[in-house]
Structures are given as structure tokens and as C-alpha cells.
């Protein structure tokens, strides 16, 4: 719906400016397309909001689109954006390999892409790749988890959606740390596809099969919320849960003494940074920074949870 309205406005503007190029709003800086996974996950909404706010502030129109982690849909959205003549594309992509062709297509059409959150497997195609350092973030979460567990005990892992690069990266980051502690034993490991309701069901059956579970490490916050609800329902609030993303829901749970920790990816700031780099690039032909930029994640626990709001940590 958003898509239709904005596309309509976009084409209307193009049509009007085609007839009357001197019309005042045609002097704007053009449109920036912002393409992310579904806004059902507040993390991606924060990204889109951050990018849109910065683009508007810098004098651009915005076209906000979602690909639902479907590379084919992403490809179609790129076609729409190219056809609409956008000046630049801000993208949280739908697959490290599958997205290369779409970004290349935009580049061939003279439209630069600025990637946020997830990286792609090729360089020299996008202008910027501002990558959330999920591996480093997962290590932070795992270090906290190990500490909370006292370096020993049975634990379970909830893994994200397999098609999402970051699901694998986070799991690897967790195990990189946890597997160095031989007294920490993984008794169950399963995907819950980033879903809160699925995590609830998965946690219920994990708990039934393994009542000895002392901790749960989760690939993201929505699954951590689902797991925590199942643990509460089973009267097992003694279980240590650690999530990933830094959502307001998990923040509130940490403050109430529920979930113990999460890891913040600065989604809002990262999206704004990408738009600023796009603006610099459009004005001067260069961003002045390297294509691949890592952005570190931050551990959130009871010490700093109160400073967290909409994927940003106040000083």
C-alpha cells in the first residue's frame, strides 16, 4: 500500500516535472529507494525509518519497499526502482549471493546502491556496504551467556531463518565462544525462523525433552521473547535467556529481570549513515570511505538496558 502510494506520487511527480520542468518541487534532489525485509520485525522498521528520516532531512523523496527475504521479489523491486529513476538505493539485502545480480543491474542503470546490515559476496558492485558486525556481536552475547551460566551446564540454541546470512553468522559467533567451554553442553538446537510463535512451540518441546536446560541462546530477540514466554508458562523463569538485536521488548524484559541480555545492532544510525554516504556520493562521485565498513554491536544487559530506545543507545 505504501509502495503503491509512493510509486504513484513518484510517477506523478515525474510526469508533472516532465511537462513543467520548472515546477518548484521538481528542484528536489530526487528519490531514494529504501528496500528492506518486512517491517513486521521492528529492527527492519527502525532501519527504514532511520533511512527515510535522513533522506527527507537531506531533501530527497523516499520510496519505501520490502522484499520479505525473497530474492525474486527483491529483483522485481529493483526493476521498479530503476524504472522510477531513483537516484540511489538503500538496501538490506535478501541473500548474500542472490543479491549481487540485482545490485549490479542497478549499477548498470547508473543507480548506486548502499548496503546496510548484511553484506553481499562481491565487492565493487555496491558503493558502500555498512555491515553489522554480527559475528562480533554474537561473540559479545556468548561471552555474557558463558558468564551467566558459570561456564557450565546444559543449554539450547534457537537459530534464525536459514536463508538469512546473519542466522548462520550469529550461530557461528556463538559457538566460536561457547565451544571453548567443554562444560557447557548443547542439548538441543533448532531453527524457529526468527518467529516468536514458532520459538514458543520449539521451546516447549525442547524443555519437555530436556528438563535439564539451564540456558537458551537465541539468534534474535523475537525468538528470545517466544522462548521466554514458554519458559514462564512452564514455571521455568530460572532459565537464562540471551537474545540478539536490542529490541524494546527485550529491553523491557531485561529491566523486569526476565531475559538476561541482548546485543544491539545500531540499525537506525546505520541506515542514516548509508543515506549520508549516498548523498555525498551523489554530490561528489565518491563517499570518501571504503566500500566495506564494519559496524560494531553493543552488549545490552541490566547495566545499560534503560538507555536503549528503538535500536539506539543514548549516551
Amino acid at each position, binding site marked *: 500500500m505504501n509502495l503503491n502510494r509512493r510509486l504513484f506520487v513518484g510517477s506523478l511527480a515525474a510526469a508533472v516535472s516532465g511537462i513543467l520542468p520548472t515546477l518548484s518541487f521538481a528542484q528536489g534532489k530526487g528519490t531514494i529507494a529504501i528496500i528492506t525485509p518486512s517491517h513486521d520485525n521492528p529492527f527492519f522498521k527502525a532501519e527504514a525509518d532511520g533511512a527515510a528520516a535522513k533522506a527527507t532531512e537531506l531533501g530527497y523523496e523516499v520510496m519505501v519497499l520490502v522484499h520479505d527475504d525473497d530474492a525474486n521479489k527483491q529483483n522485481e523491486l529493483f526493476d521498479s526502482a530503476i524504472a522510477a529513476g531513483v537516484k540511489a538505493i538503500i538496501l538490506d539485502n535478501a541473500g548474500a549471493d542472490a543479491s549481487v545480480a540485482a545490485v549490479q543491474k542497478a549499477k548498470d542503470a547508473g543507480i548506486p546502491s548502499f548496503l546496510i546490515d548484511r553484506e553481499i559476496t562481491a565487492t565493487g558492485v555496491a558503493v558502500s556496504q555498512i555491515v553489522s558486525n554480527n*559475528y562480533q556481536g554474537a561473540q559479545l552475547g556468548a*561471552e555474557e551467556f558463558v558468564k551467566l551460566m558459570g561456564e557450565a551446564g546444559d543449554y539450547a540454541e534457537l537459530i534464525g531463518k536459514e536463508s538469512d546470512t546473519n542466522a548462520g*553468522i550469529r550461530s557461528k559467533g556463538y559457538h566460536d565462544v561457547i565451544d*571453548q567451554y567443554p562444560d557447557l553442553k548443547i542439548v538441543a538446537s533448532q531453527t524457529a525462523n526468527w518467529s516468536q510463535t514458532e520459538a514458543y512451540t520449539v521451546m516447549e518441546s525442547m524443555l519437555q525433552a530436556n528438563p535439564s536446560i539451564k540456558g537458551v541462546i537465541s539468534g534474535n530477540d523475537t525468538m528470545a521473547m517466544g522462548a521466554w514466554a514458554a519458559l514462564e508458562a512452564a514455571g521455568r523463569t530460572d532459565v537464562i535467556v540471551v537474545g540478539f538485536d536490542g529490541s524494546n521488548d527485550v529491553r523491557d524484559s531485561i529491566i523486569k529481570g526476565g531475559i538476561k541480555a541482548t546485543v544491539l545492532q545500531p540499525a537506525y544510525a546505520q541506515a542514516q549513515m548509508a543515506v549520508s554516504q549516498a548523498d555525498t556520493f551523489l554530490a561528489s562521485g565518491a563517499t570518501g570511505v571504503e*566500500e*566495506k565498513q*564494519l*559496524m*560494531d554491536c553493543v552488549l545490552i544487559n541490566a547495566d545499560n538496558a534503560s538507555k536503549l530506545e528503538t535500536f539506539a543507545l543514548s549516551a
Partner: protein
Amino acid sequence: MHRPLSVTLCLLVALALPGCKIVKTDTEGENAAAAAGEAGDDARIAALLDKTYDAELLPLIATNAMPVADLRTAIAGGLEAAGAAHGNKGSGEGAAWNFAVKGEGKVVEANLTSRARKAMLDTDGDGKTDLTLQLGPVIKGSSLRDVAPFYRFGDFRDQIEFAKLARALNDQASAALVVPEGELAGKTISFSGTVDLKAAGDAWLVTVVTLAVAP
């Protein structure tokens, strides 16, 4: 890092010898032996460590290591300025400044029962802990990687390969440490290593590369 070069070489060889069949053998160069993509990460990282750890990284730390007090003074004048003059910044926004550091101090407290063994050190004689030495086998962070300007994120396929480098460096350093049995508290330790700081006031967690305990 050397993949593009070896690919180019293969291509050149292939172009120059169109009638030849390229047969992969175990005696090919170290880079050619590593499979592309994630499967070859371990071999590539091992080759990179062989090439750089003793020859470049340890000399860099030995040459640049500042005495604890000097580094503290420099940082008191501003982390950015101290970092630019004496350190190296990790890749990207929000990354820490990394410094090579050396010093000596009395162990205030030690935890040798954790898998991440630690010694808290008093280096200025006031009886209080002012830095923590990581004694392994589990080492946190990536300061061994990030202290070196020659390990650059852009040269690696992705964050996983880059993270594997940090882990391999930590493992190599920690394997070389000889931590004496028994109580460490009260003993004097001299060390060199690396420290990463995101803010001037951060507690110092030192990744140790050389360690000597006074008898």
C-alpha cells in the same frame, strides 16, 4: 588476499598454454591449495598466520609497545589523538583503538580456574588493579588483529573469514603462553601485548603475547 593474483596467474597460464590440461596437485602453492569460499578459510588463515605472525605481527607489537604509564598519559590527552599517534583503529564505525603495550606489575588477584584465565595487575604501586591480563586459553576480542594495519577487513571475503583471523591469532598467542601453576597473587609479572579501547575510561583488558613471572 592472494586469490585474485593466483586466479590471474592461472588464467595467464591457461591462455599461454591452450593445449595443456591444468591438473591440481598437492604441491601447488599454499594459496592455490585453499578452496574458494568458506571451505578454504582455515587453510587460507593458517597460511596468512604462517606468513605474518612471527614475521610481522610480533615485531610490530615489540616495536610499538608503549610502557603502561606512557600510554596512560597519552590517552589522558584524548583517545583519538593518542590513537592516531600510537595506535591502530579496527575496521569501521564504532571500532576500538588498539595499542601495543608493555609493563610490569604485581598481581592483585588471579582467576586461573576459568577457561578465560585472568590476572589483575597493579602497575603503579598503589595496591589497586589497573589492568587485567588475559591468560587464555579463551581470549576475548580481536585486538591482536586490529592492532595491525596490514590486516584489513576489505581484504577478506566477509566478516566470518575476518573473524576467523582474529580467533586464530588469539589461539596462537594463548598457546605460546606459559602460565605457572599455583597462586599468582603477590607475584610480579612483566608482559607485552595489545589492548583495545573504545573510550578513554574503558578498563584495560590486555591480550598477552609475552609473559614472564618473577620467581
